């Protein structure tokens, strides 16, 4: 479904990613793990067009998307729930969600999608009219997730969704992610809760210093000594 081939990218003269290749198949949850500053977010930004790549090729649904503008990529059914939430602070909760359904196909179904998102996040329904800016950190993360789902994406890239959430909510988030998959959404998940992530994922990639250093199915990864030492703190 998503194929990244030998991607190099960075900011200005500072190269962050070096020949990164990765693949996500339909129906999978793929985990991308790596330490702070490894370049995970940079990789995602390059995929969704926020950042131009130096070289390499990206395909989504067998269509080349490298070089396309973000909005075109979004219209193809790739949803990116960015790191740091990035909600529209001056809009109400409901309007934020509606913005998520902006691409033409999803706009038509927005009412229906909205009620299913409200089901997943009752807090959002409670505060439907509140200004998103005044939400607490955790509430904002829920909103960002909900918004990402509103576009009825085929592939959803989620960048550190549990960041700053109460433990109870973190568990819920993982449930939601499983739910999403059950509804047929393919997921590329970046998470620091490495153990839990690997438990719900099918396959994983490990990114270190801008290079993929390991890939494989999750069971293997969980068993790997390197992973245990570097990411599980064992």
């Amino acid at each position, binding site marked *: 479904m998503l194929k990244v081939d030998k991607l190099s990218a960075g*900011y200005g003269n*500072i190269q962050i990613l070096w020949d990164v290749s990765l693949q996500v198949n339909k129906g999978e949850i793929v985990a991308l*793990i790596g*330490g*702070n*500053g490894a370049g995970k*977010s940079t990789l995602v930004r390059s995929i969704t067009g926020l950042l131009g790549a130096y070289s390499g090729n990206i395909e989504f649904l067998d269509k080349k998307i490298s070089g396309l503008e973000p909005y075109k990529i979004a219209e193809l059914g790739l949803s990116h729930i960015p*790191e*740091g939430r990035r909600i529209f602070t001056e809009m109400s909760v409901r309007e934020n969600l509606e913005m998520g359904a902006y691409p033409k196909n999803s706009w038509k179904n927005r009412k229906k999608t909205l009620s299913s998102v409200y089901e997943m996040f009752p807090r959002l329904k409670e505060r439907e009219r509140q200004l998103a800016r*005044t*939400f*607490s*950190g*955790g*509430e904002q*993360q*829920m909103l960002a997730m909900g918004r990402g789902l509103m576009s009825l994406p085929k592939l959803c890239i989620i960048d*550190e969704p549990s*960041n*700053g*959430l*109460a*433990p*109870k*909510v*973190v*568990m*819920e988030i993982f449930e939601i992610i499983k739910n999403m998959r059950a509804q047929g959404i393919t997921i590329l998940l970046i998470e*620091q809760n*490495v*153990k839990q992530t690997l438990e719900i994922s099918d396959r994983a990639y490990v990114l270190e210093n801008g290079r993929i250093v390991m890939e494989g199915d999750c069971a293997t990864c969980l068993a790997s000594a390197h992973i245990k*030492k*570097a*990411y*599980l*703190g*064992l």
Partner: protein
Amino acid sequence: MHLLEGKGVTIHFGGLAAVSDVDFYLDKGEVVGLIGPNGAGKTTLFNLVSGALKPNPGEILFKGKKINRMPAYKICRMGIARTFQTVKIFGNMPVVDNVKIGLLFGAHGKIKKDTNAEVKNLLEFVGLDDVANTPARDLTLAHQKRIEVARALATQPEILLLDEIMAGLNPTELVEAMELVKKIQKKGVTVVMIEHVMKAIMGICDRITVLDYGKKIAEGTPQEITTNKKVIEVYLGESDA
């Protein structure tokens, strides 16, 4: 007398009581954890203590002195420093200058000969010495949080308020960060930390306070808190993480 004490601290945003009638205290040398569901009012409480917001009603005493009407910079100079949940760094300034500000304007704000040496020490302390001259905005979020810690430490605080500095760290990095907090405690700084990462809270806090809907619902040692029914119900969730 407690080092820091709050009595009946309350603040409303419109109709919402973000913090409501909360009493708290802090003794010298402690590491206190502040936890609670998202939106419980933890960050707001930090804002009240550090002078970004003023309680109404309620009062906050630092070493017996009322500080709840003081401007933020004075509170900082008295010895209460903080970090921010959504990082507030001086993005276009190099990391060193970020820290230098704290040193030059904090509690002992007089210019000292060894400013540069001290900044270097602090950066080493938080592990940022290799990016000292990089503009702060080019660092990752986790590193930016560490800039904030260094900057706060530079003001020579007696109390340090840490707002989710461990979010987004993987377990291994988490262990390092916990070490850092312990080192800070060893320096004689009293620490309050907001954190959702239970491992960290349980690992280093002497005492934990739990907020929910602006109210204090529990307080006690980590053991007491993890077994508290109410806390499990509203915050931790049924199966322990």
